[in-house]
């Protein structure tokens, strides 16, 4: 289990290799990478700045990761999330879940990104052709996260 919050880019291959190296009990690794798009609604995006709440960010990501490990049979998990200025095409976030079984790896990875999107304290300020705009939270993200509520 590991979470990292960093300004620098990450190397997907190296990160995923490190998860499974010298492990022979892992049959499946599912990963998700989020990237900056150049379109948001009808506005063109030049770049964006990701603000976050140092300290709480790491705590929330660790909480999301611990919840995934409690719910699924996982051999290893990883969340890496960047902050600062990012341009279209840049990587924002990497979530990965390794498990003996692929269904577990898929569900856990999906959960990691859905939950962090509604709980980790990051905010996007986009430089659009209409000026800088704070990104609004999406109700679709709330719905995606709510799917994982145990009471359902």
């Amino acid at each position, binding site marked *: 289990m590991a979470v990292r919050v960093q300004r620098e880019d990450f190397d997907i291959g190296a990160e995923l290799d490190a998860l499974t190296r010298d492990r022979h009990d892992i049959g499946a690794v599912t990963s998700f990478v989020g990237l900056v798009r150049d379109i948001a609604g009808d506005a063109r995006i030049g770049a964006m700045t*990701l603000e976050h709440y140092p300290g709480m960010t790491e705590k929330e990501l660790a909480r999301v990761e611990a919840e995934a490990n409690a719910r699924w049979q996982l051999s290893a998990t990883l969340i890496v999330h960047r902050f600062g200025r990012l341009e279209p095409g840049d990587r924002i976030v990497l979530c990965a879940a390794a498990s003996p079984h692929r269904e577990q790896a898929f569900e856990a990875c999906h959960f990691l*990104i859905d939950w962090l999107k509604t709980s980790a*304290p990051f905010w996007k300020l986009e430089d659009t052709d209409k000026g800088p705009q704070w990104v609004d*939270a999406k109700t679709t993200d709330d719905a995606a996260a709510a799917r994982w509520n145990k009471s359902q």
Partner: protein
Amino acid sequence: MKVLWFAWLRTRVGTGEETIALPDSVTDVAGLLDFLAQRSPGHAEALKNRNVVRVAVNQTYVKPDHAITDGDEIAIFPPVTGG
């Protein structure tokens, strides 16, 4: 008490961090928001719609009835948009 503001709440308030003296009459998060809203027109504007305001005490999400004390770190921010 340290109060942190993030994202567009920070730009409305005009600062990312301020230190306030907590009156004895303010004992929970809801009361704190009412108190903070009176500090400036920017504060009032930032806290106008409480539905889009999230509060963390000591880096943990809390509800409006959460009790607070002078040593707490309070963070106030809009719904998150990372990932």
